[in-house]
């Protein structure tokens, strides 16, 4: 009974995930379960495979072996079309924001909706764009180019673009990197607000302990390609293990 309940709640289930680049084994038998409405932060040193992990989940990188189930569907077995359908439900915020330089903010937000033009209608699309921009507090930037925006604003626009398809899961790749501590905290709070408003589940890759403290329901420590420890912020902070302590000192 308990097992069945877990199965229903899990939106992402990763089992024995392995990924190597040449001789460098980045992920070794990695396991993770993301439950509905939960925010998991994955902590780890640079190059420990955190970004690789979420890129495997979204299907940008193919794992060597193991299983990744998103809403019960095995990602590695999905056809290109089904992968696209799955990606509507899973948003991805890139570390570099990945806003299209040659497009205005409006066009950037329109882009993920291109495939849904017919179903949604042009007026509806405009409403969706304005709603997404209002969610991040930047409705006035709609006709601006990304180059005219500050780092924090670009991050918010990238978040708005991620939200426009109303995903059920959001994968954040270092959402506060390159931002000052105040803007970093604003972005972290915004992520939390979005999670509450849309009831999303998230996997957040971060080094920023302020962001971790604000957003994490559960933290996973990725060391040597495996899940070294797992727990809440307070639980891990109290740990006497030196490998865990180095992240909290």
């Amino acid at each position: 009974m308990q097992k069945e309940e877990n199965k229903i709640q899990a939106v992402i289930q990763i089992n024995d995930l392995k990924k190597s680049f040449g001789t460098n084994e980045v992920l070794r038998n990695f396991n993770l379960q993301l439950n509905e409405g939960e925010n998991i932060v994955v902590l780890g040193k640079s190059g420990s495979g955190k970004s690789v992990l979420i890129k495997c989940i979204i299907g940008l990188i193919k794992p060597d072996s193991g299983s990744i189930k998103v809403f019960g569907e095995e990602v590695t077995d999905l056809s290109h079309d089904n992968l696209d359908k799955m990606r509507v439900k899973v948003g991805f915020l890139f570390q570099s924001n990945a806003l299209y330089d040659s497009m205005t903010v409006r066009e950037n937000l329109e882009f993920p909706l291109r495939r849904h033009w017919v179903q949604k209608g042009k007026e509806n699309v405009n409403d969706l764009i304005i709603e997404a921009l209002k969610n991040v507090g930047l409705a006035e930037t709609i006709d601006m180019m990304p180059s005219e925006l500050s780092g924090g604003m670009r991050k918010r626009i990238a978040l708005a673009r991620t939200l426009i398809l109303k995903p059920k899961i959001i994968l954040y790749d270092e959402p506060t990197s390159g931002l000052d501590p105040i803007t970093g905290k604003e972005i972290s709070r915004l992520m939390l607000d979005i999670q509450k408003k849309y009831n999303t589940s998230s996997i957040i890759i971060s080094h920023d302990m302020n962001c971790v403290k604000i957003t994490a329901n559960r933290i996973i420590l990725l060391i040597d390609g495996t899940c070294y420890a797992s727990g809440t912020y307070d639980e891990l902070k109290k740990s006497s293990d030196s490998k865990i302590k180095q992240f909290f000192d």
Partner: protein
Amino acid sequence: MKSTILKDFLSETGDLTRFTMSFFREAFRPRYEFSEFLKQCYVIGNKTLPLVGITGFIMGLVITIQSHPSLKAFGAESWLPSVVSVSLVREIIPVITALICAGKIGSSIGAELGSMKVTEQIDAMEVSGTNPFKYLVVTRVFAATLILPILVVLSDAISLYGAYLGINLKQVVSFDLFTNQIFEKLTFSDVLPSIIKSYFFGFCIGIIGCFKGFYTINGTQGVGRSANSAVVTATFVVFIIDLMAAQIADIFQIT
């Protein structure tokens, strides 16, 4: 050392071949990115036309001025329009236009796609349900393939006008007489091979620019390297195609 260079060359050629095969696989499968294709046609044509036009005009003028004394020495001054027009239309203008496009279009595509690659914009496109290969590569390669012959034809016309002005610097020749003399010698078999090879020039410039950009590594430094490499490779390939076109024309006696 030598074996490493050979290995790198063969590896690069293999990757480019695979990339070209992917182009043909993706190009004819829906969904078609028609609006992006039209945008790229406009961007490529609009960016290159002024440069190609000016170069064509100068080439027409210079070739005429330089050919004049030699033909005069042989008493064949009246042949000047036909000799110049055949060399311009058959060889000089298609190759010069292709070289300008290799520099202008090849570097621009290589740098644009390269910077999109290193800033994860290509990944973002894929994540948002758009096939980046179709959207970025197929549209640009088709646009380059279609636009280059058009640029060549326009540049041919401008260069012939340059030649007309060049002739009139030394003697008075009416425009009617000049055009009559051109079309007396300039035949369909002169124009057709030059247009056909221009399609190949355009295709190669587009595919090489996209290939170099799409596989950019090492951040911003890599973007510069991709743009540079796209120009060098495309220039080299233009000459190879030109050589092959000359051989094929010779075999089929289109001379």
